[in-house]
């Protein structure tokens, strides 16, 4: 990093010196995220940051997507605790790595890059809030050699903080379930605004619940005029093909076929 540029104001009555900083607190994470993204692009890995509230069906939808993709895929599962999701994926033959944040509400670039590349940088700032879980051991052989495919990173179930932190992704995919309620774009605008594609999940339940689709879509459109909203069902597989087509097209544009 270049040494900070010092702009020194007139000292006030005491002998302190005021230095203008004007630097985003997210600066460092964003720099590391950009570095990791460049590494992935170099290996022709298309990286998808999967966001959504707890219980929105992120893992189930991901399994459907990976099965329908017909391309090589690797999944990083982020959870506060447990390796339930990674075990579920591995049981289906999908290479997966679990990160447990031990309490932190989001994944950040250093923890993801370290876990995937299998090169923990001891003492690296920002890692203290996270640790690779037991299944993190698979990263050394699985992630490091992965190239030419899709890397899905399922973020911590949370509609707030994960939207703030880039983790090396090419696109953000937001899973929102009809059971979450149609007011979510109004209550958690940032996640909807930053999403590149929104999967409205559990649409097989629409006839049983009061979900105001117009209110939902109206909120989404005000925040995000361009992201497609795809109606899907992780349970039946409906709509997954459309999501997969979008992902393939986008990957083709960014990393080639």
């Amino acid at each position: 990093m270049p040494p900070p540029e010092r702009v020194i104001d007139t000292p006030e009555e005491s002998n302190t010196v005021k230095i203008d900083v004007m630097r985003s607190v997210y600066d460092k994470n964003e720099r590391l995220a950009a570095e990791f993204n460049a590494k992935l692009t170099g290996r022709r890995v298309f990286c998808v940051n999967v966001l959504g509230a707890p219980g929105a069906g992120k893992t189930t939808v991901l399994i459907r997507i990976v099965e329908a993709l017909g391309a090589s895929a690797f999944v990083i599962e982020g959870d506060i605790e447990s390796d339930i999701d990674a075990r579920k994926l591995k049981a289906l033959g999908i290479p997966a790595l679990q990160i447990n944040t031990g309490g932190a509400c989001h994944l950040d670039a250093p923890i993801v890059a370290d876990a995937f590349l299998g090169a923990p940088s001891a003492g690296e700032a920002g890692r203290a809030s996270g640790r690779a879980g037991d299944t993190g051991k698979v990263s050394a052989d699985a992630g490091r050699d992965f190239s030419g495919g899709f890397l899905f990173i399922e973020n911590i179930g949370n509609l707030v903080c994960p939207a703030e932190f880039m983790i090396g992704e090419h696109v953000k995919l937001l899973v929102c379930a009809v059971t979450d309620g149609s007011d979510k774009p109004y209550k958690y605008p940032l996640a909807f605004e930053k999403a590149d594609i929104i999967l409205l999940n559990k649409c097989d339940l629409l006839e049983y619940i009061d979900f105001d689709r117009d209110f939902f879509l109206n909120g989404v459109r005000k925040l995000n005029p361009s992201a497609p909203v795809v109606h899907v069902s992780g349970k039946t597989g409906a709509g997954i093909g459309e999501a997969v087509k979008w992902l393939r097209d986008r990957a083709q544009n960014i990393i080639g076929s």
Partner: protein
Amino acid sequence: MHEYSLTRNIIETAAEYAGGAKVRKITLVAGEASGVSGESVRLYFGIIAENTPCAGAEIEIESVRPMLRCKSCGTLFERKPFSFECPCGGEGEPTEIGREFYIKSVEVG
């Protein structure tokens, strides 16, 4: 929750700018829609800054009201709950105003 890692970054950046001197005061700018709780930053700061050049520094947080920009008349206005409507009747879209979270300055010495 995510204030823990953000506060660590604040402390590291402030110490870097101080270049070995003691940090007396850190001024942050935090938009009300930045998702950052100032109280939480202060709480973590007291703990994480111990034994660093930032220990005991004052934290000042300038807050910024979030604004939408009207797609019809171009005016910046504050969003009402569950609405994106501009006082002119037009429709607002999000801006970066109210989203920011940065370190404005540090006082050292």
